[in-house]
């Protein structure tokens, strides 16, 4: 187990060369607060070419406001970062990186993380902690970081992260580089999501250790019309089209991380007339997607709940995308 004290001594040595810097590096810290919503798995995950023409592993997260991580940063007057709970060392590392990137090499503080995000379900608990920690640190310094800046810090702290820091903004995100491959310059259209955990992996999935899918060349090509349709879906604000993208991506992913009951879930999705079925591509949650403008939406959801219960899925929750949270 790593120590909860992450020493900034190297940063100290680098910064001691200038007295003026030194003064700037220690002063003006106040308590800071940051929050980050979880996501509910992905609308789409696969491989896509960036502007440089090189293929990158990418995803589009589904933001989920009912699970979140909150972080309080309290300056401790020393040059060490302490984190609670102690095992959340990635968040401590993220705070350390944030401080030094904002020029505060000599600063430290206490980082308290409060999260209701279940771990290992594919909800992005780790990136939410890290994002909230970075926001809390920036807040303590009276700084506001863009999602792009947060992503750069988060991927350095975690080696791979998801697109949590972008909130409702739709981006095709390269999770191993922390880069945006395509910014759709829009919020996610509103989707009504009936979420649940398919949870046979009792301990969840370690999303970083999970080996990346080895997609075939055909699958890599098949992501292209999905991204094309995503552009259209965002433009038209279409829940129906988003549902079709989610179902297609979930289907391809079955070879790499099978979702328990996937076939039955797809049947239910079709039977009740859901817009689609989404899954966590490195986790166990899944969701049926509904069009909020569909007049029979409530009936469909009720029917889906009944059918899901017959699969032994008892714990379900509802949330909406495209709204603040």
């Amino acid at each position, binding site marked *: 187990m790593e120590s909860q004290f992450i020493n900034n001594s190297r940063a100290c040595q680098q910064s001691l060369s200038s007295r003026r810097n030194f003064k700037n590096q220690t002063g003006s810290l106040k308590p800071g607060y940051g929050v980050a919503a979880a996501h509910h798995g992905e609308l789409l995950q696969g491989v896509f070419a960036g502007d440089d023409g090189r293929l990158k592993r990418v995803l589009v997260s589904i933001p989920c406001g009912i699970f979140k991580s909150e972080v309080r940063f309290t300056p401790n007057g020393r040059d060490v970062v302490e984190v609670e709970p102690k095992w959340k060392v990635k968040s401590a590392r993220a705070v350390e990186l944030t401080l030094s990137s904002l020029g505060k090499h000599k600063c430290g503080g206490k980082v308290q993380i409060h999260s209701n995000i279940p771990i290992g379900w594919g909800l992005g608990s780790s990136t939410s902690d890290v994002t909230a920690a970075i926001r809390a640190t920036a807040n303590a310094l009276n700084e506001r970081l863009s999602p792009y800046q947060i992503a750069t810090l988060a991927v350095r702290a975690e080696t791979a992260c998801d697109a949590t820091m972008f909130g409702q903004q739709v981006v095709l995100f390269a999770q191993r580089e922390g880069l945006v491959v395509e910014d759709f310059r829009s919020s996610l259209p509103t989707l009504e999501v009936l979420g649940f955990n398919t949870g046979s992996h009792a301990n969840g999935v370690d999303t970083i250790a999970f080996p990346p899918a080895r997609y075939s060349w055909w699958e890599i090509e098949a992501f*292209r*019309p*999905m991204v*094309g349709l995503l552009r*259209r879906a965002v433009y*038209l604000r*279409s829940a129906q089209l988003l549902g079709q993208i989610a179902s297609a991506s979930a289907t391809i992913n079955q070879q790499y991380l099978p979702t328990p009951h996937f076939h039955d879930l797809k049947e239910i999705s079709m039977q009740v007339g859901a817009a689609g079925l989404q899954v966590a591509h490195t986790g166990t949650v899944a969701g049926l997607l509904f069009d909020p403008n569909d007049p029979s939406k409530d009936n469909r959801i009720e029917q889906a709940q009944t059918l899901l219960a017959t699969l032994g899925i008892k714990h379900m929750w509802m949330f909406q995308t495209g709204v603040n949270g």
Partner: protein
Amino acid sequence: MLMVKGINKIAPTVVESVVLPKLIRLNSNLYGAAFFLMKLLPARFILDRARDAGLLHEGSVVIETTSGTFGLALAMLCKLRNYKLILVSDPAIDPPLQRRLEDLGTTVDIVREPSATGGFQQARLDRLAQVQAAHPEHFCPAQYSNPHNPGAYAPFAELLTEAIGKIDCVVGTVGSGGSMCGTSLYLRLLFPHLRVIGVDTHGSVIFGQPDQKRMLRGLGNSLMPPNVDHSVFDEIHWVDAAAGFTATRMLHQKHALYMGPTSGTAYLVAQWWAKQNPDATVVVVLPDEGYRYQDTVYNDAWLHERNLWLDNLPESPVRVDHPLEARSDEWTCMDWNRHTYEQVMGAPFSVGKNDEPVARIR
């Protein structure tokens, strides 16, 4: 990597600038995908994959046995990439195309004499084997069997989904199986109910007709291309030459689209189906431009001499239950129902004894 987003940037070569089609609204629910030269898409993808696998580098020899538009696409790409291209062809190749290929530095190797057994097709295969033996390091794109032919159509599918969104039906001619099977399988991941309508012509073996000399070219085949996945198709149409050529002229006269006869043939079927299904969004694949056919399809005298001009296009096809019921002189269709060849015909495809194996591959 072919970028759909940002395609309007300055292109590195002519290929990138014309490889994707223009999308044109032809009716309230019918979109035409008008290609400059559709075969650039598979030729490019096949050569890219071979290059990535280390099979091609500057100066490599590429050998193929086509005399149609796939050969032209290969010739353009091989010139731009400094590969040496040898096309084994038969005397059916049209002279302007041959000159164009040769202008691009392609060696056009024409088989003059049919083989004693097996006709031109066999002679061509024999000659191909000789040329291949003379260049042991060569690469053969093999458009009829290379899975990278159908696999090449993802950028097209991306363009369609981005521009149109939900698509209910795709209509197009079938020759190698590449465009229709490839595009449809990519789109069906997103739209499982997508209706796929394949357009063939009488005398083509692809959908179970006996092999015969065909007037309408650029679609159909005398051989069964392994790249045709029959189970993709919901519905098959056989269009005769007169209807196909007249429809090509209609496409020009009505929509000012100067396209080749495969385009007109697909348009005939697509405009009919779109009219029957006004709530469905239909895409029709228009594979090449009309300039190669100025002296034939676009020449009234040529059409009249051959009795190929129709004053009135048939309004609808004759419906049959089996491919062998399709008469050679009328537009015919049947529900294929995503079956295999064997499910429809009762036996797997085999070359019949009476099939004259004349080289008619385009």
